[in-house]
């Protein structure tokens, strides 16, 4: 499990840039479900030559940007889950999908338990997503508390 989470550290820095704008100040993953889905207005021009925006190119640093990394997920694990929060909510509502699988991988859920993970998430949609204002932080806390109550999944959040 540890190895898998370590594997997510890449691109940490560039996610920080996104999360920062969506999540506001500090380290929290404060963005709500439908935030941060809009494309940059300058995209039309930018895309012509595949322009790099911002000054981060190799999003592969392992820093935590000064954030506390206590909790089940590493800083980068959190940034991945919050970045795909919207896709995840759609997959949880339906009960399957790549975003759901990705979150399972981030939590270190082994292949044999991923179907269970999907089922448990689907059955607990209302807990994980109580309303449209739920933040990524709250969502992750709920995912973990739901996992703790399941016999097969509790070991991943121990």
């Amino acid at each position: 499990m540890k190895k898998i989470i370590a594997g997510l550290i890449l691109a940490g820095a560039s996610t920080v840039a996104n999360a920062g704008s969506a999540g506001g100040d500090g380290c929290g993953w404060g963005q709500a479900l439908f935030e941060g889905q809009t494309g940059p207005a300058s995209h039309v021009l930018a895309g012509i030559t595949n322009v790099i925006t911002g000054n981060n190119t190799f999003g592969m640093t392992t820093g935590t940007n000064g954030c506390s990394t206590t909790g089940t997920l590493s800083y980068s694990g959190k940034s991945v889950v919050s970045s795909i929060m919207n896709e995840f909510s759609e997959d949880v509502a339906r009960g399957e999908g790549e975003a759901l699988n990705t979150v399972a991988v981030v939590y270190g859920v082994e292949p044999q338990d991923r179907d269970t993970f999907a089922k448990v998430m689907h059955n607990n949609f209302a807990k994980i997503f109580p309303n449209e204002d739920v933040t990524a932080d709250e969502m992750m806390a709920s995912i973990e508390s739901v996992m703790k109550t399941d016999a097969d999944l509790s070991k991943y959040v121990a």
Partner: protein
Amino acid sequence: MIYLVSTIKKQFQILLFSLMIFTASSHAADTENYLNELHQQAVKQQLWKHAEWLNLLHYEGDGSSPDDYVSQVVDQIFFLTDDGANDPKSELSAALTGIFDATTSDDANIQCRFVARSDWLREKLNIAASSLPEVHCTKYLQWRENVQPQQVTLIFPTYHLNSPSSMYGHTLLRLDPGKDKDESKWLSVAVSFGANIPEGENSILYTYRGLAGGYRGLFVTDHYYKKIQEYNRIEHRDIWEYRLNLTPEETERMVRHIWEIQDINFEYYFFDENCSYRLLELLEVARPGIELTDEFIVAAIPIDTVKSINRSGLIENIEYRPARATVLSYMLEQMPEDHHELVIKLSEDIDTLQDPGFTSLSEEEQRNIIETAYKFLRYQQSGKDQNRDIDKRSFQLLKVRNSYPVSSKPVVPAPVSPENGHNSKRASFAFGERLDNYYGELGFKMSFHDLEDNEVGFLRGASINMASLQIRAEENEGISLYKLDVIDIFSLAPRTPFFKPTAWRVYTGFETELTNDVDQLVYHVTGGGGGNWNVFDNSQFYTLATGRLEINKQLEHTIEPAIGFITGFLSHFSTSTARLEVSGEHFTDGVYRLRTQYIHNFVISTNNSLKIYAKYQWQDNNVEFSDINLSYQYYF
């Protein structure tokens, strides 16, 4: 040497052992002798002329003259000698000395900074790891902990004409864990190359410098899910994923080189030394002996580089990742048409769930309508500011969807993949008659796709052409340039109750026009917008209002403006495409033209077709004439 603790330990043991036998000074002298010997070997083998060395330092030129090597890298920090950008020999010599340099330790050592270069030298000169000074490449190893791919996938986000940025598509690489590892591709590393442009750059300057040079390019790495979000969700572009058959060793070689080029600036040109070209260079580093870049001298159109990679036998498997908008279209297509209204109603008002028209449907039908309505709502919101009401409704739809049983995502059948489309350049030979004169015509087009060209592998109704030339030899007139389109973009995406794209056209160039009895070449810029609708299966009707500026000595002013229109039918049959179009323009000085054109293209094979062209034109002073021809077209 630097990867495994056990190797380091072994090295340490050897070192201790050496110390016991030799004195420190004699060891240093031995190293020096050994290094001298290696230098001699390198010179004897002319190792700096080796294609792999030249690729690792991104040299171009074949060394036929002493000054012929020029590296595409512009940052001096990438080189070890002052003239490194032009001197592969002294670079090689400096790198060789560098890896033996015990005074620069760990991350600063050449062994850590230029891992691929060091490895290559070790391999070519049979340098034992134990003879090199011990280094700890902390930064490199830290990076590698997160980047451990077993295979490489070439990613091609396809065309989307309604955003001019993606007219030609784009390519990037994805570094994946092994086939047997059932992990998420969303977490794979995406490697792409792009222009490094200062923020807030003026757009005119940007276009100019992008074409003429002056920008630098950098490699960028990120999680693949961000690319999915960017292309599939925000830009509505389908993605093609070509898994390459690079071995884990070849993949490893590429990754080590990627480490060397991080934050390194390269030359960047929009047409040739672009994103796609640089990826070919990475593949050349990965698999020694493969030649991919040579054919792209003038331009590297992304799909042409995919074809080149395919010809080299690198593609193992193809997967299709449709855009969210494509999935939405497919879901709409799959449901009975009378459910469409419910989808729209539900996306606007959640109480539609209580509508008898909805409640009387089967559970599966209800679920499909809810999922489609959610997708439609999110599609409408893409690229727009957040809206509380829509967020609320979106959430309600998700919640309702959750109350239905689990179901899998609809699988959109993959269309023919784009590398199977006709080639980008076109030559044509025509014979015809205009103004009662017979003519022969030779045509050449640099790129890319006409509305009536074979649509297999392309986006229907999307036409982009650059540098298209027609030269005519007329019976009584001799040889002359008949037409030169500099650029011609025509976008005809159909409007439906769900999608509301604008049909638009922009084109500029030289064309022959008969004005006041003088038949001559004029220059024009024409553009317009309107709508396009599917009238029946495979047939579209379009109509656009246009504006035109023309430089024509026969008109009253040097630059004369006109207003006009274009309207027509475009029909796709199984092996042919027909277009019937009426268009016209009226200038401010009273001159006008009205024309009807019929074009029918018959596909013979992917890269061969026959085309019938017929035009009848009416103008002021009761002038009317025709132009008809039959042409053979070859795509190459």
